[in-house]
């Protein structure tokens, strides 16, 4: 999946001519937490977050000081060295950027122009959809030797039972490098017969998997 498919293209922006007061107004009106600052060609100049604003403005008690700050240009408090993404980036890559850089929103830039934005919430939403968690299903984890052909065998068991797969994730077994774990979300309330087939094919099935517990 690429960024273009999940980014928000209806982006609210401000220009350098706007004041901090304008930004406060926009954030509360649109219920957003970040606003990109652009020039007349929609080129990205910087970004301002609700936190930047909070840090810059004196308390309500300091009426004079507050008034002065609110009338300043928004460019005085914007962050200018920004990490950006591209519409053709992969969602997985972008997730890693969020994770590594501890950012909560990522402007998407193409041809030097701002074309979209992705927030942490958008990303989480996408991941939930990728794992199939929004459709009724059961989740199984199958531990398989880390060898070619094993995934195929698991899938043929599932196919024999005519069960629809909602999503598949594969990750290395943390305790044993010669194994990996296949996480399956399948569209059935009764995975018992499938579990039996998988176990008869020599696989270890976890349903559910709680460390320290043995399911029957």
């Amino acid at each position, binding site marked *: 999946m690429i960024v273009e498919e999940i980014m928000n293209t209806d982006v609210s922006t401000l220009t350098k001519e706007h004041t901090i007061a304008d930004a406060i107004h926009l954030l509360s009106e649109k219920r957003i937490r970040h606003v990109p600052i652009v020039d007349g060609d929609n080129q990205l100049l910087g970004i301002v977050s609700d936190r930047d604003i909070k840090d810059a403005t004196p308390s309500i008690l300091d009426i004079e000081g507050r008034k002065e700050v609110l009338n300043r240009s928004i460019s005085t408090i914007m962050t200018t060295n920004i990490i950006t993404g591209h519409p053709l980036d992969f969602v997985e890559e972008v997730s890693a950027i969020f994770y590594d850089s501890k950012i909560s929103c990522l402007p998407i830039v193409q041809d030097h122009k701002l074309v979209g934005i992705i927030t942490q919430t958008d990303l989480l939403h996408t991941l939930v959809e990728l794992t199939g968690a929004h459709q*009724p299903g059961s989740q199984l984890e199958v531990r398989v030797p880390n060898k070619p052909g094993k995934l195929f065998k698991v899938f043929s068991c599932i196919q024999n039972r005519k069960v629809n797969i909602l999503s598949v994730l594969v990750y290395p077994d943390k305790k044993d490098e010669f194994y990996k774990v296949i996480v399956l979300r399948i569209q059935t*309330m009764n995975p018992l017969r499938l579990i039996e087939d998988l176990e008869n094919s020599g696989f270890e099935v976890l349903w559910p998997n709680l460390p320290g517990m043995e399911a029957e």
Partner: protein
Amino acid sequence: MRDSIFIFSEDQLKYKFNNNHPFNQLRLKLTLDLLEKINAISKEDIIPPRMASDEELQLVHDPHYVTAVKKAGNGELSEDMAESYGLGTEDTPIFPNMHEASSLLVGGTLTAVDYVMSGKVKHALNLGGGLHHGFRGKASGFCIYNDSSVAIKYIQQKYNAKVLYIDTDAHHGDGVQWAFYDEPDVCTFSIHETGRYLFPGTGNINERGQGKGYGYSFNIPVDAFTEDDSWLDAYRTSVKEIAEFFKPDVILTQNGADAHYLDPLTHLSATMRIYREIPKLAHEIAHQYCDGRWIAVGGGGYDIWRVVPRAWSLIWLEMTENNNCYGPLPADWLDAWQDKSPVKLPSEWDDPADLYDPIPRKAEITEKNAQTVEKALYPIRNKAGHE
């Protein structure tokens, strides 16, 4: 005047997918027979279900879906079409006359509703109902039509009453929750095994409703391997506080009996103890807030021999305030069914103390469930504090 009725007819057993399917309505007969053998029910208590009309089904269900179910039952639905309606799968296979069989289960719950809402009785039990996974336009999780959703809409329209739906099945009551997700006059409560592994996967604490219905959907997802004390603590605390917050005109309880340790499809470690307590509190709430109006339906329950007959009998015994449910089960019931059962039938009403080995992470599970309850009830506790 009698206080309670029991909805039943042999025709309810026609909701049958195939011989290998875990959903098996023979449980209805096993339960009724157990009640008869202890003389807890008489012929006059038993009322046959009526059929739900298409119009009634369409209070909740998409007309195209109803048409598809009819066609499927006559062998006229193509495989592709069937699949798009969730029919013809391993979970909900197609069977002859499935529309009629499913409509009868819905009609049974409507019969129960009419008896209770018209004041003829206080309580009504339709163990053939409780198909809480049925969606507007799709079959899911062994459920074709959603009798509880239809019944709640029917209560709203015909009797204009506020309904509290209490779902104690081990699976999340997703179909009913989504049907009333944006309505403030229906409050849905579901306590279930967490959807981390278990079907359908939803039922998180943060599913609280939307729009005007925000704050009227409650979910308590308990951990796998949860035992009686922790489960009951979560159930009692939340049902009491939600009833006090919502002040319903009528309660509809879904009594799936699949949270038991012996149930093959779930991973909770409850015993017969919770099935004594579930109807007890429901009964209390019904009299405290609703002048007794209480409709109870069945639901899941896949150990049909050792778990369901006892668990479901206890609902009727509570409704009729009959204490004859301690000690040994009647010998003539055991004699009648032991040969047909693939497992040894239990000899007593209660489970033995050594039903299962101790759960190693009990303390952590208990603590986590208590936190879940706290989070789920936070909005109403917080609100109460500010008044």
